[in-house]
């Protein structure tokens, strides 16, 4: 969807910011510019990137999803629980045991279901996405606590752990997994009919409706996909730590919205891109990593990250073509 200079400006801005930051960090720290650290950064951002790709779709459609962090925790916990304990079915007196593959599938399904629930509430009951997903956030957090009893589920085995800690051709598995989704959704947003509808619904919902587009179906899909990607992110987190934490993903929705916004996607919908979001995630990742290497206190890291978000949005506002 690169169409004219507007997109190039937004993209160019993020890209320039990233390059400057990499240069700065390389000068300030001799441990920054190494292949190992590069892969490290990519692995660190993979969870946020997974969430942010879904968040990009949702924001492009003109919505928002505050529940992704909680859905991440729930999906991770469900997968871990099924893998470790299985699923007791008292009415049949049996215990269903899950393989790693089965648990992974179940985790993704949980994510999809929670996302679908968001979409359903938003399209059927016409709740504003902010409120609807705030409700889902609380529901998913509560369900996670109920499922885990408030305790982490640990010791999930090597096969499952490979998802978070394994390498393939020298590159960490989480990086491969989120790279796959990035490629898929870059294609979806740029080349498919669904992608076109997504931009149309976010750009002008009323006009999209009057043009006969299936507005509600598009939204339902967008939230479902966003939930599914949160499920994938939940599996990555759980596999990485070999443990499902009931409090996993606290506040991740804000990091993910930040990445999308830094990547030049408009919060009012209809304008932006998945590639922009990749840049946004990289900027946040490089910043966190660099400040850590420079021994900057994590408290200051938060302050600086906040200022970067403000600067990115302020720059976008100065875009000469933003009306």
């Amino acid at each position: 969807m690169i169409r004219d200079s507007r997109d190039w400006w937004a993209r160019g801005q993020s890209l320039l910011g990233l390059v400057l930051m990499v240069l700065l960090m390389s000068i300030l720290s001799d441990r920054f510019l190494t292949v190992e650290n590069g892969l490290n950064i990519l692995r660190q951002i993979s969870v946020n990137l997974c969430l942010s790709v879904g968040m990009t779709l949702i924001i492009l459609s003109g919505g928002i999803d505050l529940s992704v962090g909680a859905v991440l925790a729930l999906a991770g916990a469900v997968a871990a629980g099924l893998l470790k304990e299985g699923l007791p079915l008292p009415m049949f007196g049996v215990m269903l045991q899950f393989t790693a593959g089965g648990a992974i599938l179940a985790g993704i399904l949980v994510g999809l279901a929670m996302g679908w629930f968001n979409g359903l509430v938003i399209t059927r009951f016409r709740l504003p996405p902010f409120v609807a997903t705030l409700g889902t956030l609380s529901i998913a957090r509560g369900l996670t606590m109920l499922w885990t009893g408030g305790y982490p589920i640990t010791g999930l085995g090597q096969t499952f752990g490979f998802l978070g800690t394994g390498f393939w051709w020298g590159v960490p598995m989480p990086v491969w997994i989120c790279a796959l989704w990035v490629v898929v959704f870059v294609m979806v947003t740029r080349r498919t009919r669904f992608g076109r509808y997504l931009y149309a619904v976010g750009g002008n919902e009323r006009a999209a409706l009057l043009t006969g587009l299936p507005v509600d179906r598009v939204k339902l899909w967008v939230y479902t996909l966003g939930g599914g990607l949160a499920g994938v992110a939940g599996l990555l987190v759980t596999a990485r730590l070999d443990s499902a934490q009931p409090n996993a993903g606290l506040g991740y929705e804000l990091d993910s919205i930040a990445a999308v916004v830094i990547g030049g996607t408009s919060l009012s919908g209809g304008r932006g891109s998945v590639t922009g979001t990749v840049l946004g995630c990289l900027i946040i990742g490089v910043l966190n990593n660099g400040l850590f290497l420079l021994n900057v206190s994590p408290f200051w890291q938060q302050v600086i990250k906040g200022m970067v978000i403000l600067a990115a949005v302020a720059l976008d506002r100065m875009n000469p073509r933003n009306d």
Partner: protein
Amino acid sequence: MNTSAAVATVVVEARGISKSFPGVKALDRVDLVLRRGRLTALLGENGAGKSTLMNILAGVFPPDEGEIRLEGRPVRFANPREAREAGIAMIFQELNLVPQLTVAENIFLGREPCRGPGLVDYRRMNAEAAELLARLDLNVDPTTPVGRLRVGQQQVVEIAKALSTRARVIIMDEPTSALTRHEVEVLYRIIADLKRHGVALAYITHKLEELPHVADDVAVMRDGRMIGVAPLSELTPDEMIRMMVGREIPRQVGGRGRPMGEVVLRVEGLGLRHPTRAEDHLLKDITLEVRRGEVLGIFGLMGAGRTELLESLFGLHPDGLSGSVYLEGRPVRIRSPIEAIAHGLALAPEDRKAEGLILEMSVRENTSLACLGRLTRLGFVRSAAERQLVEQYLKQLRVKTPSLEQRVRNLSGGNQQKIILAKWLATHPRVLLLDEPTRGIDVHAKREIYELMDELARAGLAILVVSSEMPEILTVSDRIVVLCEGRKTAEFSRAEATEERLMAAALPRSDHGMSGPQPRPGGPGSAAG
């Protein structure tokens, strides 16, 4: 009150007021005088400039040129609040009340009587509000939230607000449009009372029957100019109508001799309930038909139900709809735009930017949006096929754009409208619904749109075109249906239609039954007479 206008003191004098909005000259050197204790009724078609002029007097926006004198002193208002403080109050058609606040709070909003710093004296405020309401014969408790009142009662609250500022000039924009018969009578009494107290009034209306009850002077506007001002006694309704419409119409003969086919769309007894007020109808018992190759014009003033008619046909008001719709003889029930499009309908909405286009998207993406299904394989858009289709329709409609990738935001209004037409033609429609197809479009582009409509009709489309511009309706239509307050009041063939006839059918006859059939407004008998 003396009927001789010259005697009463001038309160407001506007001289040479001009105002332009992007693309239109809304007011062109307009003069207006409002006098103490007299009411001046402003008449004119939609878009004649009445509301713009009143908004300027009330400080909503400044004039580009010209001077306003209030009691002899030149004034210039930066905002409505300054105008109100100077003594000019305006009661807008869309009411400016806060529904959650009480009647008294609304009346004194921003001017609350206080006890000490920042503490509202509620007792005094409610007492003063009650006094005002009693004077206006509105029997509600001042502590009722305004949102619980009916629209007519809210209007009276607006008047109370104007009175509470001790305004010397009160402007009313179609104040009776939402009032019941009783409330209208009360309003007339209030107006008479205001006149006795020396308030100068301006009153925008479309209802000629109201004039004998309220007006002392009549000012008629047309196309941003003041056509004439005279005491009511010196004008007949026919003269007023002539002044409102009288202009040379460049009639085109482009549509003559179009071959017409069978009936494509037939509507029988179509009705649409008001979404919130159960007893009210937005449309009532509308019957019409359009043939292949025919352009049916639909004329009406604002609020006549023109847009609602097109939207109902297009499936945008599935609830509250009654009556039947037939497409090529078969009854259909259309409950969404998706179904409407599947049945071969297409709607170019009134507000192009808000409803017709995705402004952030390119010419290519907007044009192909309605028929992407045909251009998609396995979910992917076939870009070569898309480009080819878009180019074909842009060429057919003679769209001028630097490239297919240009954002539609950057195109002129005429080209934007053509993009919308191109989008719909790509769906191969049978019936084209056009709502104000040339609003905000320059003269040259208008002509092009008219030519396109003629071509499309010749190619076998049935076209329904809604317009509030009479010359446009008379130029493009084979037949004309006139709507007024949700009902069909007349139907004319092209030969029968004249501006006077259209206007006479479009003006509401007040069904309050106070003036009955209206031969001519009586002499100087204003309510204060």
